[in-house]
């Protein structure tokens, strides 16, 4: 446990999460990031001599000069882009974290897969499409079927029922995004500025559903998946 008072300059931020690893360094004031699968994290630091500031599930399993939890890292990373942030929603591979920056409070859902990236992956696999295609499918939907089951596994059964009932794949994907977003919305407190980070922030279908449910503007930084790696770096700088 390194006290935060210890400043580290010229380091890199390394976020090794449950499904992906992200690396961030700041060059001439510009944030540069790289992303790979968790088990290939070494390729992100090969040949780099700088001190590593780690975060994410594997923060203490990779070599590091200092480490910080992804909750604190998220706050420092998001503030780099949105200093006035009220609430951060971080949708990761295996959990979803909602951080109330104003109240210094956080909630983590890691017990139910239906509000995590794992569920989106599960649904994409079922339709034999890539994760990045879910948003396109959502846009093409003309109707949105109700998918109410909060359990990720049973939601798939419900999606099958909706296909049998005559909804298109696109419409069922849109219904799934609404079910996913509704689940997450229960964790989000009333706030003015909500920032969404994590891999699922790249899924425009899910973002559209969440905006529609919350009736709020949702801000997304340029590379939402690398924010925690950036935050780890900022925390010690």
């Amino acid at each position, binding site marked *: *446990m390194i006290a*935060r008072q210890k400043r580290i300059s010229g380091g890199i931020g390394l976020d090794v999460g449950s499904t992906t690893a992200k690396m961030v360094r700041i060059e001439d004031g510009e944030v540069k990031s790289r992303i790979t699968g968790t088990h290939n994290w070494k390729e992100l630091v090969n040949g780099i001599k700088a001190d590593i500031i780690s975060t994410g599930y594997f923060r203490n399993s990779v070599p590091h000069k200092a480490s*910080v*939890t*992804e*909750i*604190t890292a998220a706050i420092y990373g998001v503030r780099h882009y949105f200093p006035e942030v009220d609430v951060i929603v971080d949708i990761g591979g295996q959990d979803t974290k909602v951080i109330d920056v104003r109240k*210094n*409070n*956080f909630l*983590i859902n*890691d017990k139910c897969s239906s509000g995590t990236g794992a569920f989106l992956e599960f649904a994409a696999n079922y339709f034999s499409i890539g994760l990045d295609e879910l948003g396109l499918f959502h846009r093409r939907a003309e109707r949105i079927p109700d998918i109410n089951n909060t359990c990720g596994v049973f939601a798939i059964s419900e999606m099958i029922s909706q296909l049998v009932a005559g909804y298109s794949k696109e419409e069922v994907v849109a219904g799934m995004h609404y079910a996913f977003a509704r689940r997450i919305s229960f964790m989000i407190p009333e706030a003015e500025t909500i920032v969404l980070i994590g891999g699922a922030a790249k899924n425009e279908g899910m973002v559209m559903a969440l905006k529609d449910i919350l009736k709020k503007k949702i801000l997304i930084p340029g590379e939402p998946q690398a924010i925690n790696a950036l935050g780890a770096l900022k925390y010690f700088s």
Partner: protein
Amino acid sequence: MHVSKIGITALVPPELIFACGGEPVDVNNVIPLSKKYPRNKLCAWTAIWKEMLVERELSVDSLIVVAGGDCHNALVDGQKVAMSGIPTHFFFYPFDGDPEYMESQLHRLSEFLGGLEFPEKIKQINDLKKLGQQIDIKRSRGRITSGEAFSILISFSDLRGDLNEFQKIAASIKEHNIETTNRVALIGVPPIFYDFHDVARSLGLHIVFDELPYEFIRHQGADIREIARDYCEYTFARPLDFRISFLQKELEKRKVDGIIHYTQFACHHMLEDEIIRSRLDYPVLTIQGDLPGNTPQQIKLRLEAFREMLERL
């Protein structure tokens, strides 16, 4: 002389059990280290003691179930134990704190236990509780680790069944010089993880107050009448307003920086979380456990993030 082992499922005045010639056994104490996976469960605490008692893996001659004013699951699981043939008595605390009702409950309990035989034990236990209170204060001042203090204080529910031996153990606790930054209160039912206090300490959190064990050392009395009047202030059995105003004073006295609210899966105390958060003006970390064992990684992440949060304040 055969001394009856009297199982207790929550706080039952141990003074009365010893004074009636019994040896109390808090059936919860074996659970954090238990490897048992109960077949039919809501809360793992009650499900495990129920199964161990029904299957005679935990040896008691009779059982006192605290069925009113604390654990609601125990009311059903206690009946299952009774149906298995273990003599079982159901003990009810008064929700409104009525001392006459409490006194009548203690008289009924005394009858179940065969009547007062050794009233001198009451004074011996009162003296032991003074020692417990000193341990609690020393822990708060950084003279005793929270893990060691918790292990002794939680044992005050049954005094490990042997007053003389327990007195020796409590008196021999080692003193240290511990830095008590990030002072936190642990409220709610005790964590089901056997290493929780040590894990919290290793992550930079110093637990200076354990709500339930504090109840075990603060109630006493010279006879049934006095015991009734003191124990009817057992906060877990009283309305939330009563418990919260008591907590407010204790937290202020101990200068805590934050609160960890431990909740047990499928325990009705989980429902209290939102009230605790809104009424106690401290940063609150709510965690939830289910089955016993060591502290899971997901809980460690929350504890570490909570420490970082306290350091940002």
